[in-house]
């Protein structure tokens, strides 16, 4: 898997060339200075070799001008590298709006992936070309890292919190997926592929693999079976517990008087440690669900609560293809049909 430039891996995302460009700049500066120093060294070593055993060269005073010169020039060059790197980094780690959301759960030693349309995969990720894709990731055990060299993108997958990374593939193909944070015995086996498809093929793939519940639907079932309904209401309208419909992404007033944005981290914390951030006006009556719901199920509950946000007619988010949104089959989850 190589690009036409030697020693550069295939470029397959909108971010690749930006990283490569900076890499070329850095390489150029490195080669220039290494050659400069080496050539001067070799020249001096030959030119000023010791000719007679007892000779003593004249001592030379240092020079403030020279010192200033070779302090300021490297500093200026370093700052261009910093600014350039920071700019692209900010882009890499700022999740875009309107991206396809895909949930990733890492565990020793596999990647479990849930599309918001219900498809589940293990160690494979199918995505369409030319669409922004955002991964929301967490781990069941140790720290992992979702690394796709062709996209020049990686992010740690940390237990206990959600992290995210995003990319927009530019070229159909099959690319390496590596775990890049050492995670124990079979770390080097925690690999897989990212399969980038043309949009039409991707739609085919989606419909060919339809039949699974969407995470939101699975979350809804959990919501019922875990008894959340009794306090939060069947549709999240609230009751003894706070309202969930439309909660996601909103500022929420807490009993301490502070406000907090109801994001993934907040919802996750409120399920496994409900007393931590109580909504104003509600007592500490909710039991903890720590240990009772897996990371997969947490992701499903999260997806369900997010879906409650959409009260008005659903916007046509392409992630949810018509085949899966209109009817929400409530049969039990079959064995994962992805490899």
């Amino acid at each position, binding site marked *: 898997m190589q690009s036409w430039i030697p020693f550069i891996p295939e470029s397959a995302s909108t971010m690749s060339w930006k990283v490569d460009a900076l890499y070329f700049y850095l390489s150029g500066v490195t080669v220039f200075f290494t050659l400069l120093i080496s050539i001067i060294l070799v020249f001096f070593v030959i030119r000023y070799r010791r000719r007679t055993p007892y000779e003593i060269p004249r001592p030379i005073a240092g020079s403030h001008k020279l010192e200033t010169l070779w302090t300021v020039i490297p500093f200026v060059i370093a700052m261009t590298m910093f600014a350039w790197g920071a700019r692209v980094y900010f882009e890499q*780690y*700022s*999740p875009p709006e309107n991206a396809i959301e895909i949930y990733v759960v890492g565990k020793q030693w596999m990647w479990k992936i849930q599309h918001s349309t219900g498809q589940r995969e293990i160690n494979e990720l199918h995505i369409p070309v030319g669409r922004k894709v955002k991964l*929301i990731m967490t781990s069941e055990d140790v720290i992992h890292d979702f690394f796709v060299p062709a996209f020049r993108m990686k992010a740690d997958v940390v237990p206990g919190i*959600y*992290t*995210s990374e995003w990319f927009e593939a530019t070229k159909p193909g099959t690319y390496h997926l590596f775990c890049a944070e050492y995670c124990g015995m079979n770390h080097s086996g925690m690999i897989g592929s990212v399969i980038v498809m043309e949009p039409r093929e991707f739609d085919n793939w989606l419909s060919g693999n339809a039949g699974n519940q969407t995470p939101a639907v699975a979350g809804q079932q959990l919501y019922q079976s875990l008894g959340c309904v009794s306090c939060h209401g069947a549709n999240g309208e609230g009751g003894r517990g706070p309202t969930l419909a439309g909660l*996601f*992404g909103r500022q929420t007033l807490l009993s301490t008087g502070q406000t907090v*944005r109801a*994001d*993934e*981290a907040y919802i996750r914390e409120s399920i496994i440690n409900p007393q931590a951030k109580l909504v104003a006006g509600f007592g500490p009556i909710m039991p903890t669900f720590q240990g009772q719901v897996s990371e997969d199920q947490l992701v499903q509950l999260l997806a369900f609560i997010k879906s409650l946000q959409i009260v008005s007619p659903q916007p046509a988010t392409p992630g949810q293809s018509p085949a899966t949104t209109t009817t929400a089959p409530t049969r039990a989850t079959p064995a994962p049909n992805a490899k």
Partner: protein
Amino acid sequence: MSEHIVPVKVYLAIFVALLLGTALTVVAAFHDFPWQFNTVIALTIASFKATLVVLYFMHVRYSNRLVWVIVIAALFWMGILFALTFSDYFTRDWISIG
């Protein structure tokens, strides 16, 4: 490093000040101040007490520059540890993953 002998009176005064500081911080702890002032007050009193111990009991006030540099360096490095670690934790929410 010429040696300086601190008079007993000074030690006694510092000792009394430290006891008063302790009493004050306990009393202040039960009082409900607005915002985070309970923490601020407790830490200010503790820092004041520590400063007295360092300056008088540990003779830093009468010591040479090197000792001052060492004390300040120690605080500075603690500062680095705290400031840069919390530069991470305090700015995490600035970009939400959602």
